[in-house]
């Protein structure tokens, strides 16, 4: 067997600081990347939601803003919408802020009570059902029970069987949703009848309208989700509904998606900045550490050249070592970032926040990035050293 590089030389002695240096750089990259992933998921989730359905509200402002905007959408209007050609289903909904003091401000942290008419299937093509992490989904006949979004439940330390007060009424938690990293994480899902009760308790004007007999209970809807038949153009259908049904506000999925992207342009720019910064900091730290580690061994290269090593021999050995060292540093950096992120998120989650999203693609990218960049940096340093004569390399390293 020819004399070759031994396995233990792939992780040679004296590389502890190099591995630590790489780990710090990779940890920075992963942490910044995880924040970017978190923002991306939020934006993509919202976009996916609005592109999956046509949202219709009654004409006027009604209560709240943002998701809760719109006047009453009566049962008659919902029937009219359902009759528009191309509509596959209409689900009446009541959506309102849990805390009325925040109702005038659409915030990223707003908690919402979301009542759905589960006697019809969820029309949203991208969310046919909301996946449940624990317990069970909400059912049509449910009353005074709720299924909570992941952050809603975690921030209040609620689980299946817990009791929670929504608008002054006690509800039993029967399920907790999977984390979606977008709006439903802050939802309390209830039956539409329970949502209507909460609305009536909250808004005295509605009670007076009921007393006058001008409203029926199933007229109490803040909006409706509209689905379309296969092959139907959703934007065209939305315009058809707008043209056919009087006094409703119809969101055009394509337009609302564009508006959503415009309104989140700041976050997209932030995302780009964070990503660039992460790559720059992590990349510079990593390549600098590996290059310095190779240059520190310049004397060893001189000795090896004196013993007959060719450029190819040296390159192969250094790349072998760089692979071991940068892989160790990369994995250590990922673990370090996971540790820091988990510690920070453990605190943040008490406020219903999560700052980091360590997606598998991010972690895989970080490890591959560290190995590839480590290899390139090592190859660059080796080729620089290989230009020197053996005597010069020994002199410089001594």
């Amino acid at each position, binding site marked *: 067997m020819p*004399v070759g590089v031994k396995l233990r030389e792939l992780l040679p002695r004296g590389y502890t600081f190099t591995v630590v240096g790489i780990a710090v750089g990779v940890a920075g990259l992963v942490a910044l990347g995880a924040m970017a992933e978190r923002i991306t998921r939020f934006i993509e989730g919202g976009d996916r939601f609005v592109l999956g359905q046509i949202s219709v509200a009654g004409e006027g402002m009604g209560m709240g803003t943002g998701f809760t905007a719109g006047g009453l959408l009566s049962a008659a209007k919902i029937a009219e919408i359902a009759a528009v050609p191309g509509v596959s289903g209409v689900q009446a909904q009541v959506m309102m802020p849990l805390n009325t003091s925040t109702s005038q401000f659409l915030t990223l942290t707003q908690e919402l009570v979301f009542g759905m008419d589960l006697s019809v299937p969820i029309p949203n093509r991208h969310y046919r059902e909301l996946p449940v992490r624990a317990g069970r989904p909400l059912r049509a006949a449910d009353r005074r029970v709720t299924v909570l979004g992941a952050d809603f439940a975690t921030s209040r330390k609620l689980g299946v069987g817990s009791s929670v007060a929504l608008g002054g009424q006690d509800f039993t938690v029967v399920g907790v949703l999977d984390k979606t990293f977008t709006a439903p994480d802050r939802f309390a899902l209830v039956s539409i009848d329970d949502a209507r009760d909460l609305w009536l308790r909250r808004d005295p004007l509605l009670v007076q309208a009921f007393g006058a007999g001008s409203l029926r209970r199933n007229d109490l809807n803040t909006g409706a989700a509209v689905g379309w038949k296969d092959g139907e153009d959703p934007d065209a259908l939305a315009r058809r509904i707008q043209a056919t049904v009087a006094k409703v506000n119809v969101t055009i999925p394509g337009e609302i998606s564009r508006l959503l992207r415009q309104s989140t342009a700041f976050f997209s720019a932030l995302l780009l900045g964070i990503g660039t910064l992460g790559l720059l900091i992590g990349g510079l730290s990593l390549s600098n550490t590996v290059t310095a580690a190779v240059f520190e061994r310049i004397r060893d290269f001189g000795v*090896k050249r004196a013993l007959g090593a*060719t450029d190819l021999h040296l390159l192969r050995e250094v790349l072998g070592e760089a692979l071991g060292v940068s892989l160790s540093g990369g994995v250590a950096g990922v673990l370090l970032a996971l540790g820091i992120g988990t510690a920070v998120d453990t605190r943040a989650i008490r406020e219903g926040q999560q700052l980091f999203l360590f997606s598998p693609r991010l972690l895989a990218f970080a490890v591959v990035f560290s190995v590839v960049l480590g290899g390139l940096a090592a190859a660059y340093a080796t080729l620089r050293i290989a230009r020197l004569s*053996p005597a010069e390399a020994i002199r410089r390293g001594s």
Partner: protein
Amino acid sequence: MLLRARGLSKTFTGPGGTLVPVLHGIDLEVKGGELVAVSGVSGSGKSTLLNLIGLLEPPDAGEIWLGDERVSHLGRRAQCRVRGASIGYVFQSFLLLAGLTALDNVMLAARYVGRDRADARREALGLMERLGVAHRATHHPAQLSGGEQQRVAFCRAVLNRPPLVLADEPTGNLDDEHARVILDELHALAADRGTGVMLVTHRTEASARADRVLRLDQGRLATR
């Protein structure tokens, strides 16, 4: 003739771009089995001469022949082959690799010439046994004394049985007892194996035992 050098010259560039001539047109020859000592004051160019002959750096002018091959004009890759197979080096500061054990340092010489690993290991251990450092085979250089390190370095230099061994002040960092061991080995190399040895030394007793002494004075050679 094992080694022939003709018209070797070398000039270094000093601070501020000043030129520092070190060697001027050196001619020399070394036969197989001959031990040639090179002496001279510090800065006379002894180490540079050994570096040029050992292909550790290129001369500005002149040529070097090993046997029938003009090695000074070979390409980089071919010079690597010559260094690995035909020249052994013993340095004053040992130059062992800190991350490797004593045995692995010795075997490093075999790695780049494609020798069989088992065969190289057997021979390395035999050499270390003869030099009295076999019991230190698994130790790292930092765990060895200066004398032991130089004996390990000597084993590395001769593992591939090179026809030419260059020793640059090999006893410079050793006490008399350990210096004698190394000098004895260099003499044995020349006498028993027919190896050509060039030895840069300040030790009078080393020069006295040499077959020939070359004296360098301000980069010029004077045979004594």
